[in-house]
């Protein structure tokens, strides 16, 4: 049920969506989840470890892999990790985190910042 897509993937050799590296991280997850399902603290530790070892760019690849494999728990896990990483952080930090470049016109960005000035209060400057 969960792994019907996985089976398809292994059957289809010319698959570019999921590279081998990702597969080794994503697929052991259900076993890990089952083992530490009851223990929340362990999950947090595991999440921290995973986050340390994985670069943000990798994280987006992992998300896509989990999505392709139709693996809801892994998808939720990775998305939550991304959300935790960017919550309450400044715009510059988040841009650096994802390697984004601002494509706004110079005036536009200023206008937006002014409009949403209240959302920048109390933010962590990294």
């Amino acid at each position: 049920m969960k792994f019907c897509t996985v089976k398809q993937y292994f059957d289809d050799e010319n698959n570019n969506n999921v590279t081998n590296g990702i597969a080794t991280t994503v697929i052991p997850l259900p076993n890990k989840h089952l083992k530490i399902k009851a223990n929340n603290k362990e999950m947090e530790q595991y999440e921290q470890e995973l986050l340390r070892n994985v670069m943000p760019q990798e994280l987006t690849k992992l998300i896509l892999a989990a999505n392709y494999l139709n693996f809801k728990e892994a998808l939720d896990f990775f998305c939550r990790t991304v959300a935790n990483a960017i919550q309450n952080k400044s715009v510059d930090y988040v841009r650096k985190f994802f390697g984004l470049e601002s494509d706004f016109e110079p005036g536009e960005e200023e206008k937006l910042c002014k409009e949403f000035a209240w959302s920048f209060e109390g933010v962590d400057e990294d």
Partner: protein
Amino acid sequence: MEKDGVEEAFDRFSNLPVPIIHHIMSFLPTTKDVTRVAVLSKTLNSVCHSYPILDFDQRSWKKIMGFDSFLDFMQKSLQQRRESNIDIEIFKLCVIDHDGKSDQRIDESICFAIEHNVKRLDLRFGDYWIRSRYKVYGQLYTLPKTVTTKSIVVLNLVGLAFKFEDLIPSLNLVEHLSIELCSVSSNFTISSSKLKTLKLQNCKGLKTIVVDAVNLQYFSHSTFTSSSEISIRDCKSLKNVMLDNTAITDDWLKNHLSKLLLLETLILESCKILGEVDICHQKLKHLALLNCDKLVKAKIEAPNLVSFYFYNKSRFPVITLQCSSQLYADLILVGISPTNDEQFMNFKNFLGSFGHCKSLSLTLPDMELSLLEELRNGLRSPLLSLKHLRIQLFSSSRSLPELLDILLCLSPYLETMCITSKYKENFVEFQNKATLVEEEDSDFQWHYCWRHHLRKVIIDKFEVKLLRE
């Protein structure tokens, strides 16, 4: 090769499918975080505008802008979305400073959500805690009549005024319905195969409730003035029923229990008409009879009952309990102080009904402890089978050894005992002799001092009592 790999990875975030970016955003804890995503880049800005969850909570904006500016801000945000025309999944609105008069901006926002096929609609008007606590309705906001939709699955309404006749036709797909602190029409009749949860709490003007929902699992009702008639007999899948200050009779209860065969939890609080209750149910797991003042007698036959909660200020009802030996009973006995022999006998019998429970938790003011003392002084021990006892005292003027003496006389075969008072918690574990001394003469058994049976006493977290607190 490597260079390409790095560049490709760089803008991967913006190229994630939009639903996935929305999924990530749904894990962001505050609206501020969600709004900041819009400032990251042009692509993300438009992704934000199609984010299907809208949460306008005046309380979080109170420090930043006043009531009027908040409504303007909401109106503007919705206008920006009109172009994208994406369906909304969740729309939450919480307003606390309104004065009861209709506001076009609020009405428009509700209509906007409905036009965009909202699945979950949460409308909260007024300060919930103050209204609940002081039992007042305050200024209620009139729900616009144009709330006609067939897409809503979850609906939560607090602090509104409306007629059920206007609302119920839109509730075909609703699975979870909660209406609280609203002013409504007197008759609530619903027939739905989708309804799973129904909460009707403290609605002004509600008199009759008739629910025909075969898949309903959870039903709760409470009212400030107890004058509602309820019929939920046809809801055969009900598992949890909670009634607070509801005017149900003994017959109503018997009647309903015989039809609700899947019931697992039943909580009856302040049901002031119940006098003699007869609860006979195979599947019932949790039962609470709280503050049912007129309760005189309760016959409970529930082989699967796991926990029983009781609270009464005025009297000790006569309880006949036929349950498994795994039962945990929680008795809060406050305000009842027997002044004559008859009342004392009632108390003894009451306590005795729980003798075959596995564990018992008693909450007593110190005065009640003197009753237990009297029991020790001359009567048979009523709790011979009790293995785990937990006592919560309001005042702790007794020393631990004194308490232990009283309680062990009451239930000599205890394995664990936990005594909690306002400041301290003492946990004692007893290891009794492995074989129980069987006496044919039952009177003799009682005269065995509890000290004879104890092999070892382990006292955990024992704290020396302070002379002054």
